[in-house]
């Protein structure tokens, strides 16, 4: 169990690792480079530069360009401000080829496009003709059909735009990460596993029993990478019946469970074009709306059968929590639509009563985004 959690934790940490680079800045006609030159805090209006042991704030009128250790480059550029102009630091997204500049003022994001170092123009979320930014990007990127398709999916956010520009400049033929949601259907095999304290249940031979599931999913790319947060919520129903015969005694376990299961997964999808293999892992939470469980003992003596209900202790908890992992393939029907086939293993345990049954689940899933 611990090993499983360790692997899942590692899976979560991997996409957030970054590599270090030297920092630099241009001031007047001088160029300085080194480690820890740029302070951690900078905005579109100022950057802190280390001078001696102190961090000194500089404005876009004083610094022409600076680069941070995470590889991001900021250029001082003038933008319209009423009838005049003023300078701001803009992050450069993509070069050479089509270059995009980005800065954020308050909550408002600004993107500027520079093509072949000739003209720079702002790309508003909606143009004055009420045209969405995606449409403008599609026209701009018509020379690379893959990027033009990606431009239909891009978000008005820094990470999404940066990814799009790099895809366009290399005319890279890879699936573009974007937010998706859709329908999940599947078949679930559940095996209940009694814990040691429940002696009568341990007499029974539990095996996998099946039931259909139906639900919805979301898939939100993490920092516009091939990793995504993939939560699901699906309805599942199980009817389980087990019998054991021990001399003149029959033991019957009958369980009817129906409820909502919510896996919260981290998914990695290999960025191939038509067929994308993927793997996911994470936690799963189950809420059993209907939770009827009985354990009966029937004693047969001289053609007389006495049935005893060994309840009413809770055999299965209303709320269960566990881990889940699986893998499958995504088949891309178009630039926007895909179907997903997956096999997943999950294990859940009761939250409130540690002595309750645990579940092992093997789920065969079919998903389509809409």
């Amino acid at each position, binding site marked *: 169990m611990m090993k499983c959690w360790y692997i899942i934790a590692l899976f979560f940490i991997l996409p957030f690792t970054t590599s270090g680079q030297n920092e630099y800045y241009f001031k007047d006609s001088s160029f300085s480079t080194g480690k820890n030159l740029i302070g951690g805090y900078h905005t579109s209006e100022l950057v802190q530069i280390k001078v001696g042991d102190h961090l000194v704030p500089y404005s876009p009128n004083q610094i022409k360009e600076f680069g941070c250790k995470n590889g991001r480059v900021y250029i001082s550029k003038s933008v319209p401000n009423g009838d005049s102009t003023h300078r701001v630091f803009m992050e450069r997204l993509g070069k050479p080829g089509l270059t995009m500049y980005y800065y954020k003022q308050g909550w408002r994001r600004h993107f500027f496009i520079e093509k072949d170092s000739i003209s720079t123009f702002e790309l508003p979320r909606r143009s004055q003709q009420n045209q969405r930014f995606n449409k403008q990007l599609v026209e701009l990127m018509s020379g690379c059909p893959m990027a033009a398709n990606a431009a239909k999916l891009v978000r008005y956010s820094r990470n999404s735009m940066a990814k799009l520009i790099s895809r366009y400049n290399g005319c890279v033929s890879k699936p573009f990460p974007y937010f998706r949601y859709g329908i999940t259907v599947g078949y679930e095999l559940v095996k209940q596993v009694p814990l040691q304290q429940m002696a009568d249940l341990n007499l029974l031979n539990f095996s996998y029993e099946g039931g259909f599931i139906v639900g919805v999913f979301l898939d939100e790319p993490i920092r516009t990478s091939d990793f995504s947060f993939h939560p699901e919520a699906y309805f599942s129903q199980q*009817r389980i*019946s*087990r*019998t054991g015969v021990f001399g003149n005694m*029959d033991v*019957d376990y*009958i369980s*009817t469970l129906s409820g909502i299961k919510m896996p919260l997964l981290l998914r990695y999808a290999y960025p191939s074009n038509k067929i994308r293999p993927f793997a996911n892992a994470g936690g799963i939470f189950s809420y059993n709306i209907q939770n009827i469980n*009985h354990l*009966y003992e*029937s004693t*047969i003596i001289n*053609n*007389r*059968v*006495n*049935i*005893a*209900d060994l309840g009413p202790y809770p055999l299965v908890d209303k709320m269960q929590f566990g881990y889940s992992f699986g893998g499958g393939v995504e088949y891309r029907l178009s630039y926007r639509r895909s179907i997903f086939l997956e096999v997943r293993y999950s294990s859940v345990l009761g939250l409130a009563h540690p002595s309750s049954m645990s579940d092992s689940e093997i789920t065969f899933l079919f998903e389509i985004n809409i």
Partner: protein
Amino acid sequence: MVQPKDYPFVVIDKLDVMPNKYVAFHANIAYKDSLEIIDHGFVIVDVWHHNDPSKFHYVSLGILAKNLTGFNDTIYSGLEGGMKYYLRAYTKNARYTVYSNEVFFANK
């Protein structure tokens, strides 16, 4: 839902008690074998005589129709106010008499 057996498997799955007015129950025959149920009904005893079979009060409801997988009944009279009772349903075929799980209720 219950795995096949060679006797009709009967359990009380619903009990509705309105003290001093009525007690209603439903018995579910979770597995019914091919033999006809020649008698069905319930057994009731008060809490003081739970271990004395001679005090058990049997109520027969007769032959059970072949298409039925359960039965219910309501007791309107004969229960003492403030007393606690045990109730079981039963089914009988040519080979076995089966007594369901026991349910307990207070008539107050």
